[in-house]
């Protein structure tokens, strides 16, 4: 059974993105009305808008939160002024997506622009390189030309060479990719990637290399398996999002529905719930989706996800994005 509580968004136009902070008690929203709002969850369980400001340099498409260890603001939500810590100004084209790296990577931020470039920024900090898997990033392309092969690329970072190398291209995904996200890995021996393309895809990547700790010179080889392909939306899927335990995937599609997916103990995925707004007539604005995002030539990057790493060639080491 579901219960829904409405929250007056106080935005004058529709919303581009919503993001929760690390604890789930604070939320950021950005909208077409060119403003960003911050919300706090009060003791009664109500969302209260505690800050709002207009952005002056164009629209904001995405918002995301840093890990609280890097934040020096008060954790009680009492403060009412958010201080702009840094601006990242080297992208001349729009930034399509932005995400912070997992805390273990130190303070790093990955952005991808409409021009098809992924940039990674790092705050000089002690990086803890003691990890189980080499850092990985997945990049998806929304190039509508389905003849040009797989649209999802997996890059891996090698600590020895300080370089990123493409280790895998998912050939089963040939339609433009609009969103993708790694599931938080809680005790699994493989990586789980959710992809929003013309349908919902769930891909498992199982590293076949046994000992990945010391021998950093060789890159991982993955056994790629498609754990699920679902056409329930019947139309383009725009967004996928995992919950904290990596057990539930939420997909948002052009049919105006949000669907929740879960796997049973045999790792078989199925849709457990469908949520829709009523008075929806299933008329999708199909014409606008593929066409206007077409970037001539370059494989425009639709976006990215979970783990982020330092890309030596980008040569923008000095930016310190503290949020």
């Amino acid at each position: 059974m579901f219960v829904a509580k409405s929250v007056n968004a106080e935005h004058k136009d529709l919303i581009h993105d919503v993001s929760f902070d690390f604890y789930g008690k604070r939320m950021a929203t950005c909208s077409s009305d060119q403003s960003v709002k911050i919300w706090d969850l009060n003791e009664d369980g109500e969302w209260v808008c505690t800050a709002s400001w207009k952005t002056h340099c164009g629209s904001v498409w995405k918002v995301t939160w840093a890990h609280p260890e890097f934040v020096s603001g008060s954790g009680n939500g009492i403060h009412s002024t958010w201080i702009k810590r840094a601006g990242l100004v080297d992208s001349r084209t729009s930034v399509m997506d932005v995400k912070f790296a997992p805390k273990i990577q130190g303070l790093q931020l990955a952005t991808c622009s409409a021009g098809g470039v992924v940039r990674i920024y790092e705050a000089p900090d002690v990086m803890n390189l003691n990890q189980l898997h080499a850092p990985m990033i997945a990049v998806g392309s929304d190039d509508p030309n389905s003849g040009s092969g797989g649209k999802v690329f997996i890059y891996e970072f090698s600590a020895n060479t300080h370089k990123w190398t493409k280790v895998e291209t998912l050939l089963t995904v040939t339609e433009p990719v609009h969103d993708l996200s790694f599931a938080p890995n809680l005790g699994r021996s493989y990586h789980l990637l959710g992809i929003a393309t013309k349908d919902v895809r769930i891909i498992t990547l199982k590293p076949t290399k046994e000992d990945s700790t010391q021998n950093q010179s060789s890159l991982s080889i993955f056994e790629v398996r498609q754990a699920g392909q679902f056409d329930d939306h019947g139309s383009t899927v725009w967004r996928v999002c995992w919950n904290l335990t990596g057990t539930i995937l939420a997909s948002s599609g052009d049919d105006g529905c949000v669907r929740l997916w879960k796997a049973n103990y045999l790792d078989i995925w199925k849709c457990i719930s469908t949520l829709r707004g009523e008075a929806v007539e299933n008329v999708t604005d199909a014409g606008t989706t593929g066409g206007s995002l077409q970037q001539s030539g370059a494989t425009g990057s639709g976006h990215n996800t979970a783990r982020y790493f330092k890309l030596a060639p980008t040569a923008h080491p000095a930016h310190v994005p503290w949020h």
Partner: protein
Amino acid sequence: MNMVSKNSGRWSIKDPVIAKDMHGVIGGISTLMVFPHKAHSEAEKETQSKTEGPVKMYQVESFSWLWSRQARKLINESVGTYLSLQAAVKEAEPDECKPLLVKKCREYRSMIQACVEDVNMSQECEDQEEIKACGQLLYKMELILSLIEILFIDIKPGGLVLGQLVMWIRVHFTQCIEKKNEAMESDHPHLHPAYWEAVYGAVLQGRMEGARQMLSNHSNADTDPFLSMDELLRKMPVYQVYGGVSVAEFTVRWQHWQSECERRLQEGHFTTCHQLQTVCKILCGNQQTINSLIDLMDTWYHLMVSTLLFTCPTVKLFRLHNAAQDAITSIGGEQRTTPLDNVLLAAMEADTHQVIKECQQVLDNTWFTAHVTDLLCHTMGQKTGQKFLPELRESLLLDYASVLVSHSSLWQVGILYLDHCGASGIAMSQMVLQRLPLTDDSCVHKIIQMASDRNFDSIIVGVCRIMGRRALSQGRLGSAIWWGVRSRDAAFTSHLAHQILHKYVAEGRFESSQLLDHLGPAMLLSDTLTFLGKYREFHMMYQDGNFQDAATLLVSLISSKLAPEYFWPVLLLDALPLLKSEEPVISAEQTYELMYCLHNLHNHTCKRGKQGPLENEVASSAFIEKERDIRLALSNNLARAIIHEGSIEN
């Protein structure tokens, strides 16, 4: 809260704005925030589309019965039983397991019973619909669990199960008792409309004593038919598992008894009273008669047990599903079965997998499936054909635990369950402990305690770091250092120690001196912190009048270069009273050290003075004034010390 309407897994939100294009983002474990979305492409077109109403977001959460007040008690009590079960099973011998499992199963059942009582005592002000639904849910849970106990866990030797099933029916179907009481309380019991129904009901449940008691209250109790019936009822053999009578012998006796019943029926003992005839037909195992009384039994399982009681009392466990199918057919076939019936049927077919699957359909809460699967898993052990059980158990326990951890007051219970869920459980525990909002100190300490019990060092470090930064931003330096030390973050702690030292230089006093004095070995985390701790020690020694040791300490602090440069003036100023004291406390060697320090400081100050304004104006100006004094004191002390040491040697 708006309730969202349901239609078999599909839910809708009534809102024209969101109806056009809805996106959802998951926050936490199961909270979904849906919002009316506009794509980049649309926004870039700069179409000034007017929204058809206020823009609203919706926080959608799955609501579980587990959040209700009644469930709370069940959750808190059952965790104790669950944990003791896991511990006991690990240690027990294989043949000790069964009584242990039976005991735990009964504990769960008694907890459910306690909940039922709670529900019955509920106040009128509470939602009656909810109370009723809750009551039904608990009834179903207890019904299923007690059957599982009989059919899977507490299997008697020989697999003879009817005795337990009869008890099961008696406990869950009490209409006959109610009718009996109703009839007996009236003036003329035998004339009460419920009288004979009560008698039939009692007989069908094998309550022969009760039936005999009622019949003895009939006005015609002294007549032949009644006396005959009384004798038959009295003499019915009942199988006792540990009664010492073998199955074969019992069967002979029972058949003998039943043929006696048939003989008396045929000889017309009961022709004068057709109700007694009916009773006798029941005793003879006449299927038609028994079926005709279905209204008194309500369900196919009651029918099945009653039928077996008079047709095959030595029925074995593996034959049960046939009897079950027959009973279902009698009541009208599979179309009449409910999901609850499916669970019971699966149990009678000894199909563990199906039982669990059907339970998930009947009960929407994960408490039951998790605990039952756990019990079944321990019961079945490593039996062939049940290989799926351990994985299924872990998966269901994880599901249950993830429901608990997403609740602000049940997360601790959730973590206790996660301890027994393998690698995934550990990972989820760590994630939960990291993501709990650090609201107040008691909460933080609870989190740290739980993390340290499980050796989650990285989490403790992380939490302490966050608390340290929070304290710093609130200006509580002492508290920040305390957290910094616990987080073993040397860089952060050094930074804080420097802050405190700077403050001392500026203001001349220490805040949070208590905390600093009790750092103990933790101060070795960073050099600056060590210096701070030692400097506090120096203060203590000085205040205690222990000048000799204080002086030694002070000089060692200076010579060891532990002190940061900006602090040297302070140290030298501290040395001044010691230099001027009546008794010489600073030796010649030590005086040389101090002079060297002063010399260096002087040079640095001059160099810096040429470059720009000095940092700590207050301290530096105080120092410059006193510099002459210090030089004088040093020289005097040196002279004094040399003389003093020279004389002692002689």
